[in-house]
């Protein structure tokens, strides 16, 4: 079980996460949605240890989160200039009991491992970062907008890879701006609003999710368009 209690994160005077309590079942894919600026990335960054919260506790199986049990794919992963894809993957250690052959993964995602990362496209960089995370094989995997910049084929492959990882016991938390990518993949979708988890949906209830999240937004947009056109 992943449990977050009384989490508070602020940037200066702007409170992004407000006394958040959140419990997540292990071995599932959880979707995290929210409108722009709702704090999705902030929440994931605090879980991975990148951001230090002002207050609150983040626990995994009853103990504090450590880098050994969590890994995160950032929206725009950063790579070191002048090294190749294979060399980047060499840096990461896979757990002793897992089989990881870099070339198989590179072939699966059509990433040219011997090329310098500097020459990779946005999609290729994202795929390489994903392979790195798969190599680490940590129990909890956080993916911030993993489908951004991916081509159609790679998106399908990623979906299959995520399902396979979950079947092996990993817990995945995934954010996306495109709701449809989550409804077909996740078990639960959590709606983050004003710094708290406002609703938890069963992913099959896509109509309800759509209505809840976008009803207010759509009304606002309609009004604005009325004024412009």
């Amino acid at each position, binding site marked *: 079980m992943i449990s977050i209690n009384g989490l508070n994160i602020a940037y200066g005077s702007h409170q992004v996460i407000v006394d958040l309590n959140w419990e997540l079942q292990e071995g599932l894919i959880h979707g995290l949605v929210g409108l722009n600026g709702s704090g999705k990335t902030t929440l994931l960054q605090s879980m991975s*240890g*990148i951001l*230090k919260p002002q207050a609150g506790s983040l626990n995994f199986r009853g103990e504090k989160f*450590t*880098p*050994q049990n969590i*890994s995160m794919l950032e929206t725009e*992963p*950063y*790579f*070191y*200039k*002048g*090294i*190749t894809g294979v*060399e*980047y993957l*060499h*840096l*990461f*250690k896979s757990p002793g009991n897992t089989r990881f052959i870099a070339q198989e993964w590179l072939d699966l995602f059509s990433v040219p491992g*011997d*090329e*310098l990362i500097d*020459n990779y496209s946005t999609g290729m960089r994202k795929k390489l970062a994903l392979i*790195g995370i798969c190599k680490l094989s940590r129990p909890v995997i956080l993916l911030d907008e993993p489908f951004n910049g991916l081509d159609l084929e790679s998106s399908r492959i990623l979906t299959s890879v995520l399902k396979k990882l979950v079947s092996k016991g990993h817990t995945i938390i995934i954010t996306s701006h495109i709701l449809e990518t989550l409804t077909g993949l996740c078990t639960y979708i959590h709606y983050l609003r004003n710094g708290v988890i406002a609703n938890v949906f069963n992913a099959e209830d896509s109509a309800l999710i759509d209505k809840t999240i976008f009803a207010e937004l759509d009304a606002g947009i309609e009004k604005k368009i009325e004024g412009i056109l």
Partner: protein
Amino acid sequence: MQLAFLKIRWAQFLRELKSLGLFYAFLLTSGIVAALWIFYQVQGKTEPRYGSMLFIVALILSIHLNRKDHRFIRLVSEQPYFVYISEYGFLAFVFIFLSFLKSQAFTMFLLIPAIATISLINVRVIGNTKSGFMGRFIPASNYEWKSGIRSTGWFIPFLILCGILLAPLPFASLVICWIILALSISFYEQGESREMIQSFMLPARKFLLQKTGIHVLTFLLCILPVLIANFVFFSDKWWLGLSFVLFCIINIASFVASKYAVWQHGQINKSQSVLNSIGMIGLFIPFLLPIPIVNLVRNYRKATHNLRTLLNDFN
């Protein structure tokens, strides 16, 4: 079109000069003037000097093979060949002019067909995107040197070769090793990602120690042929080589500590390079010698503090 490209190059040069700041701009300008003065002095009045001509050819060839804008030039110019010729011709002009003053016109006129031939080389065939030759021998965990050696292209292997060939001259090999170490200062400007640091799975102090060890070993293996050549000719002054190696180890430890003292995820930080450069000059100006040690002590504490938030869980 050629004139437009030359104007762009000139504007780029001025922009780079401005971004360097007064100290580095002065250093660079002094370096260029000194290099031209040495070139002028080397040119004899009577016998032809092919060596300096070959040096310029090698320099232009290195620029042509390592430049990253071949695709852009081919895109905007129907005759990229003339763009290359005009740029390299402009670059070589000053050398040709200086050679005229020393009656070396004949050797320098050989530059013109050499430049024309270099401009014809299609770099797409050679390809500069694959991992370099020297980079393959450096461990993945030393990505600073892997990346740095690739970015300097042929320069470091060329310096190693010069170091071996110039070994009979007193101090020449050690000065070349010093230049290689000075070049490596820029390798420490690029901050890696959090994930790359965490991949070591070590606490902060052990991480710094391991990193320094790998970097010292890589550098020493890199200059080993030059050091051996120096020892062959100056075995009676073995202590000089040993002192130099000690100087290098302290400096590399200082480079590593200074990098992580200011490290930020994916950020380039050049602020430490100035102090590291001053520390390097200590080899020639003895009162500057303590700077790398002071730097090392000061930055080591800062670096362990900076890395602690990332690596504390590996304690």
